[in-house]
């Protein structure tokens, strides 16, 4: 039944579309006309990284976890504070922040993943609220609502320009994207989908459900932390707004628009969610209404999002091409005594 509500994942045998997307990402800065457009492109990749983790967790494994913004914020804060408080370099701070988030998500995952459906959603939402409360209230440590400044990335003693930062973010996004794609197309991806569709059946088939769920949670948290670090080096600041509701709303909107449980959904959704407010600015006071209508139309007519539309079409075409297969099955059946 679950397979009817969540699109099945096309297991494309090729990585070519992923490489094409990344090639477009490399070409993008040379096509854009201003630094502001480059900033928007960076935000697209940052949200894409964040949502790829969420996609693995919710879209492929069926774990409704709303804690991603908390890990996004913790990653950003850890990256900033390891540098400013412990004097670490950016690379070691980056590794340190990912390790910290991995350990934290493991500790949180152990008790929380016993919960299912909306109970898990509520518990992880509570974790996000707690994290946000700590970031806001522990003023001496986190800087309160002002947050923490992130030291600018440097190369040879000089701050790296926006173009350089774009390529740093693109490199991280590419690594996450290729890994995301690899997971989806591998046996691990199939195990994740089996858990999503029926945990008991997956267990009966030999999938180590608890271990798998925990691994995906940690992975998703680490991806969120990478996104948090990227946001930090882009904006040179992390503050409690990283784990506020608007981030969660953006995350869910990307999922709706891009397509849950799809290969390219996180990127397509991020493009729409980052660019749309800039395009709708012309509508003035009606901007929010138009934005809401747009999302509503997606929900009504494209429930699997843009990527779902493209990938399912591709998948259907492939299935149509393979029509002789059922005939073979029938013949085999006829041969049975």
């Amino acid at each position, binding site marked *: 039944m679950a397979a009817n509500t969540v699109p099945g994942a096309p297991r494309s045998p090729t990585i070519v579309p992923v490489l094409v997307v990344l090639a477009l990402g490399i070409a993008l800065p040379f096509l854009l006309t*201003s*630094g*502001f*457009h480059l*900033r*928007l492109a960076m*935000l697209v990749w940052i949200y894409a990284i964040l949502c790829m983790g969420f996609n693995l967790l919710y879209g492929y494994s069926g774990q409704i976890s709303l804690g991603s913004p908390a890990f996004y914020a913790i990653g950003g804060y850890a990256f900033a504070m390891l540098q400013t408080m412990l004097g670490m370099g950016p690379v070691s701070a980056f590794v340190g922040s990912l390790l910290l988030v991995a350990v934290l998500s493991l500790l949180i995952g152990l008790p929380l993943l016993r919960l299912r459906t909306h109970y898990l959603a509520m518990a992880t939402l509570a974790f996000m609220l707690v994290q946000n*409360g700590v970031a*806001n*209230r522990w*003023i001496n440590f986190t800087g*309160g*609502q*002002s*947050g923490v400044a992130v030291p600018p990335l440097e190369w040879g003693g000089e701050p790296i320009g926006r173009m350089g930062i774009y390529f740093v973010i693109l490199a991280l996004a590419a690594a996450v994207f290729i890994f995301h794609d690899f997971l989806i197309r591998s046996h691990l991806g199939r195990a994740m989908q089996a858990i999503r569709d029926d945990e008991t059946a997956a267990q009966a088939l030999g999938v180590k459900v608890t271990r798998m769920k925990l691994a995906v949670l940690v992975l998703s948290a680490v991806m969120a932390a990478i996104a948090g670090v990227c946001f930090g080096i882009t*904006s*040179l*600041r992390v*503050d*409690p*707004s990283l784990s*506020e509701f*608007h*981030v969660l709303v953006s995350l869910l909107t990307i999922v709706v628009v891009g397509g849950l449980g799809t290969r390219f959904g996180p990127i397509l959704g991020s493009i729409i969610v*980052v660019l749309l*407010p*800039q395009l709708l*600015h012309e509508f003035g*006071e009606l*901007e*929010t209404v138009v934005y809401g209508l747009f999302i509503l139309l997606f929900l009504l007519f494209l429930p699997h999002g843009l990527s779902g539309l493209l990938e399912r079409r591709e998948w259907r075409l492939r299935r149509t091409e393979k029509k002789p297969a059922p005939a073979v099955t029938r013949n085999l059946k006829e041969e049975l005594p």
Partner: protein
Amino acid sequence: MHRIIQLLYRSAATAGLLVAVGAAAYAEPLKLVICHVDDRSGSAADTGIESLNGLKMVIDPLNEAGGINGQKVELITYDTKTDPQLAANFGTRCSEDDKGLLIIGGSPSAVANSLVTVANQTKTPLYILAAAAPNVTDNAEYQFRFGPKVTQDSIAVADALSKNGIKSVAIINNSVPFGISGAASATEELAKKNITVATQQTYDVAATDVSPQVINLMQADAEAILVYPYPADGARVIRTIRQMDIDKPVIMPRVGMMKAFRDLAADTGNGVLVPSSVDTTRPEVAELFKKYSEQFGPLAISPSPAQGYDAGTLTVAVLKDEKVQAAIQAGDLQGARDAIRDATTRHGDFVGMQGTAQSGYKFSKSHHGPTDEGFFVFVKVADDGKSLEAVDAAAALKK
């Protein structure tokens, strides 16, 4: 041979200089673009809309009169929807795409914090409006604040309580940044005046029932209650306080003046005291609010139009500044932004529509904002929330 080479060098240098001078002479003057980047929807929509209207009250007549040196001021507006990341995007768009000379906005603190980062990154002057966060102008270079920091409200409250011999106060605040930083700064300032905080209660901003926290306030039996809410939850707090017959003076910095709070609280809001950065007993301030009401509809006292108006007044003064004009005419964008920053400190010590007749803005000082002392008067919610009355704090807080 040597002389010929020298001659060639000199000729090339002279030609280069002429080209540079020519380019400067024919450089297109910069457009006078300023951006209002603030909430016009979201939790601080009222403040953003009112400040924009206040700003227009300065810019529109100026443009109708021909602008500055024949150039009209172009006002671009962006709605930040209480989303700091969207605010950072719009701020960057203003600086880099619109070639804005100045950004005005940032009523919610989170939005203001985002804009501060943009201002520092892009070296664009920023006039912050209502944000209460205490440190947005600490070590500031490009940013200046028109709204007082929450610490300044707390100084005014602690002063008034101390002068009236009040020794114990109960604080109730919501869990969003305004509530948290408001309560923290109040605790700090009250301690300086030896006033005890009998209890501090925090509730979720979306909580529908705040009676557990209000019961704790009642049991603490303090002499006055200090509330740091948003409008809707503020109304719930005051209703609960009244339902429980707690007859203590209630002080509600900032939010007590907001129309949304007064409408929702209705009769229960009567008597709530608010330290106000707007003194309507000043004739020029009363005139401003009269004009505002005629142009944009009825409005009770609110700091936002005054902040927008004051930001507009200073904007015009700095855009007319000789050094700023020189950079604008030369088409030097960064030069113009730096000149605006410097002109702001030169022209920025003034008494505007906010503050009292004695205390105004001190942009030449390191904190780039209103003066710490004497900036506030007290007002009282009256007439079932329909109006705000000037009040003598001494009389209102008398035991």
